[in-house]
């Protein structure tokens, strides 16, 4: 339901990161996003079939305010020479890491 979805986004401390290079590692993501605050975990987006990174990930912070800092200062800057995009996400659930094959 749409309303619930919106409420979840407003309370979330998880970000969806897009336009990553397929070769960008968790460590690289951690270095950049760790500069905005304490990162709780990173879940790499994987190709459904090949189970290899496919250009997106989820970054979960311990606090909402750190996630806000990341959106504010990291969205639209470069990681691994690619301009990355950050968006709020409702929170990672098992299975969501698989992108289009």
């Amino acid at each position, binding site marked *: 339901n749409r309303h619930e979805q919106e409420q979840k986004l407003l309370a979330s401390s998880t970000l969806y990161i897009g336009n990553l290079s397929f070769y960008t*590692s*968790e*460590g*690289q993501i*951690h*270095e*950049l996003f760790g*500069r*905005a605050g*304490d990162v709780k*975990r*990173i*879940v*790499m987006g994987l190709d459904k079939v090949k189970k290899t990174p496919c250009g997106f990930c989820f970054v979960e912070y311990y606090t909402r305010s750190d996630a806000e*800092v990341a959106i*504010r*200062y*990291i969205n639209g*800057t*470069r*990681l*691994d*020479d690619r301009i990355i995009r950050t968006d709020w996400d409702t929170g990672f659930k098992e299975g969501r890491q698989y992108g289009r094959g």
Partner: protein
Amino acid sequence: KRRRIATDGGVDIEDRLESLITRVGEKSTSSLESNLEGLAGVLEADIPNYKHKIMKILCECVVKLPEKLTVYTTLVGLLNAKNYNCGGEFVEMLVRNLKEALKTGEFENARMMVRFLSDLVNCHVLVAASLIQMYDSFVEVTLEDNIPQVRSDIYVYLVLSSLPWVGRELYEKKEKELDAVLSTIDNYLSKRQKIHLPALKAWSNDGPHPQEEYLDCLWAQIKNLRNSKWIEKQLIRPYLAFDSVLCDALQHTLPQIIPPSHNKSMTYPLPRVVFRLFDYTDVPQGTVLPGSHAIERYLIEEQLNRIIHTNNLERKECAAALLGYPAKNKIPLNYMIVEVMFGQLFELPRSPYIDLFYGATFIELCKLQPTSMPEVLAQASEMLFERIETMHSICIERFVMWFSYHLSNFQYRWSWDDWAECVEMDPNAPKSKFVREVLLKCLRFSYHQRVSESVPDSFAPLLPPEPNPVYRYEQEGAGSLPGTTHAHKLISSIKSKCTPDEAAILLKDLPNQYPNGQENENPAFNPLKIDVFFATLLHLGSKSISHSFAALAKFHPNLKSLAEFDDGKVCLLKVLYETWKNNQQMMVVLVDKLLRTEVVDCSSVANWLFSFEMQHDFTSFYVWEIMHSTIKKMSRHVDQLQHEVDEAHDKQEAVKRKEADGLDLGDEDVPSDEAIERMEEKLEAATSAQKNLFLVIFQRFMIVLTEHLARCESASVDYNTPWFKWVIERLQQVFLVHHELVYRYVSTLELLLFTSDIDIHILEVFQQFCALRS
């Protein structure tokens, strides 16, 4: 919400008034003067019905839009000329707000109000003599006994920072009285203590530009202004155009404003040092950078700082606003922006905003002015690098953080060849250390091949090793190690998904030895067991951070029991180091995880970082990254518990009030006395752990520093080595970065550690810290 309650159009009109007032002075097709005249006319008509609202909006503009201060003083001047009572009521309200701000310690707001009142003298709203009276009562604070210097400082600052606006008018009308105020200030400033100064300077020496204390610098600027008969060229003064209207207005007398007396709970702003990077010779011809003691330098810097303050949440707007600075054609704006931004980034004890803000905003500035901004930034980076030998370690660290981040956004392109001298230097020499640490950070942002291809071949000795894990039980010669058989069994069990219990049983018969076979006589921990188990676990999870986390989570009970006591915890951390010594990020991330899952505790991390095994990494930046993140976690934990206790108390009291009023409480969740007591016990335990952590850290510092000094003395060599600089400034960093916290324990520290018999070099650091608030 308010709109729904309103039954007439009142609220709409109030909103319209607010929008009209707050937007005056923004870019517009007609002149500022005609906009002001028009607005004054509109407001005059609305005053009978909306006087209070209009006054309130104006008072908010005083503190929230100080960049348009003279626009609003002119507006108030015009209103006062039309309606004398209205001017009086505005002054009354502003004075009330000022008194409140002084009482509650909102000194920055107070400063804007004092400046506004000062400029109202120019607009014929206030009598000059009454302003002088206020100044008098402010500078009299300098004569009070038994007050901290920071108190008298701030009152002097309130006066000094208003003088560029009203100096000329006071000079013309009340010269003698103004002179008296200035001489009190002069007297005060010449006698001030400046013990704190070395703790706040970005550079320890004064070449090429002195790094001055903020009041000394402003005083020099004001003296220059006075010498030029109080004429400055920076401020826009719209009221000059209305002279004929304003000069006929009746003036008000400021009521007496006495500073509220000092009390112990009042926090005054900390002193600052003015950051100087450039002078006019650094700037290409065409525009002139005002000298460091020109009042224009102060005024422009303050306005740029203000733009950053207003826009710090929106990096793009911030960059655009900085580059859109009104007087941009007269000054080398890019240089001033870069200096102000670095001034904030290198501000001690802490930068006003998160490091990332400065990095992200510099990127936007470069995008908006791709032909000139990168050049100025490169020039600044060169200069910072050239002056790095005397730069404070905290600032060098921030420089590393920013520079590596900036490079990561610009394809790691840099004229590295110019810095080739570092290759030959002592690895602890600041220049060499800087380049090494930058490359380490670049490695974290990218990958080893990328970093090594970005620098000249000659930089090979400065490059970090490949960040791979080390696992001794699969290395050549592992066969002869006492733990190898167990380690190999453990690998296959974990791979076939054994339970934590099964893994524990597998290690049961390992003797209490060190991994090299040496006996361990301490029954509290088994180093061989810890090594076999933890090294194997880390090895199997080494593919990524997530894999490591999963391994730690699954075998959490094993880690908890292996490292039940302090020695075991330190031993565990040493195994982590042995495994990941070539990958600092993994160490940082995994220590964080071990702390959060309570496998190790904060003081064991501190003890580990100071241990013999870590000595050769002791000046590496990652060690201090871990140290400070550990202190921060500890303090967050204490804050969290404090918050819970406060909340429980509030809830209980609220319920008691309701009960007393005879309200039916229903099934409200009331914390019991026992529950609160338990929470308080937890808080107390955490607070004492925090205090203990600081004691451990300071004590260990004292030991390593004293040993170094004694060693140098007995060998009759200079103690002031690069190592000493890094370590003593790291000690300073613990004081500065966590200054509010450390200050809570200052008397314990003075009593137990920083006693008068310790070496003066160490004691000085403590004294400088104390002087920050004295």
